[in-house]
């Protein structure tokens, strides 16, 4: 027998044990559902003229709850289809990784919108804060997932920071646009980016499955 076979066996065992801990459900349906909800919410927010600071904050909190429920529904459908448990250990790990930044985002939103008469300028900080925190959540979950989720998380963090700089600059200069415009920002990022990434995943996962 080759002298290195035992080390190779150990390496195979290590790789398989790591693979067992990785969340491996298709991400395209979840991402597309989340993106669809984000884009639809932006349109609703814009056309329904949800522009009061409190209305804006509470509206997007409600949208995020719907998006989380939609994502869980997409995951559960896949689990049922594949005859696998929904609340599997990798699913638990991913949820645990996502939870702290998402809860922080909720708390930040409540702190901003709950005080009576919050100025619109303060609420303009919410989209960049949410983007950064959501990016952190994706990045943390990416340790238990394949397929570039960490990079997607970095994208949200960088975009959030850029938006924060833009909000800060506009605040110092000629003031911020009407809060109603923030729906476009939310729609482009939480809606558009998810849809674009979901479409990419859908095409590549399909190609991978066909191979």
């Amino acid at each position, binding site marked *: *027998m080759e*002298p*290195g076979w*035992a*080390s190779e*066996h*150990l390496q*195979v*065992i290590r790789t*398989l*044990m*790591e*693979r*067992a*801990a990785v969340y*491996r459900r298709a991400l395209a349906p979840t991402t597309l559902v989340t993106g669809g909800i984000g884009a639809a919410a932006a349109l609703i927010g814009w056309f329904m003229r949800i522009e009061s600071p409190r209305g804006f904050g509470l509206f997007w909190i409600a949208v995020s709850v719907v998006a989380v429920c939609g994502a869980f529904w997409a995951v559960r459908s896949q*689990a*049922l289809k*594949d*005859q*696998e*448990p*929904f609340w*599997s*250990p*990798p699913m638990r790990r991913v949820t645990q990784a996502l939870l702290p930044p998402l809860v922080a985002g909720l708390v930040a939103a409540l702190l901003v919108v709950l005080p009576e008469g919050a100025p619109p300028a303060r609420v303009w900080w919410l989209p960049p804060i949410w983007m950064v925190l959501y990016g952190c959540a994706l990045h943390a979950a990416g340790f238990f997932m394949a397929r570039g989720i960490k990079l997607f998380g970095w994208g949200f963090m960088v975009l959030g920071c850029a938006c924060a700089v833009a909000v800060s600059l506009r605040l110092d200069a000629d003031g911020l646009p009407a809060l109603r415009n923030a729906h476009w920002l939310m729609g482009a990022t939480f809606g558009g980016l998810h849809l674009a990434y979901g479409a990419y995943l859908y095409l590549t996962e399909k190609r991978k499955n066909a191979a």
Partner: protein
Amino acid sequence: MNPEPFLQLDRVIHEKGRLGIMSLLAASPQLAFTELRDTLNMTDGNITAHLRTLQESGYVAVTKSFQSGRPLTTFALTAQGRKAFATYIDLLEQIVQQSKGEK
């Protein structure tokens, strides 16, 4: 080289397919049949045969349940299976150490 650790290796676990199943189950409290099959890229017949061997050796326990009206078969390592797997890893490590010592 001392052949003792090699001779002590559990032949049930040592087979490639069963080693894969044991490794996956060692890292997860339980896994569904489809998860095992897809992760290891094995056919239904092949993995069923290996799982049966592991069950007969007392290393793997099977649970049959229903999830939203659909049958769900999950597998988990028994205490005996976990112990046998740990012993197998120890022996592999001993063999690696021995071969390092001989270099």
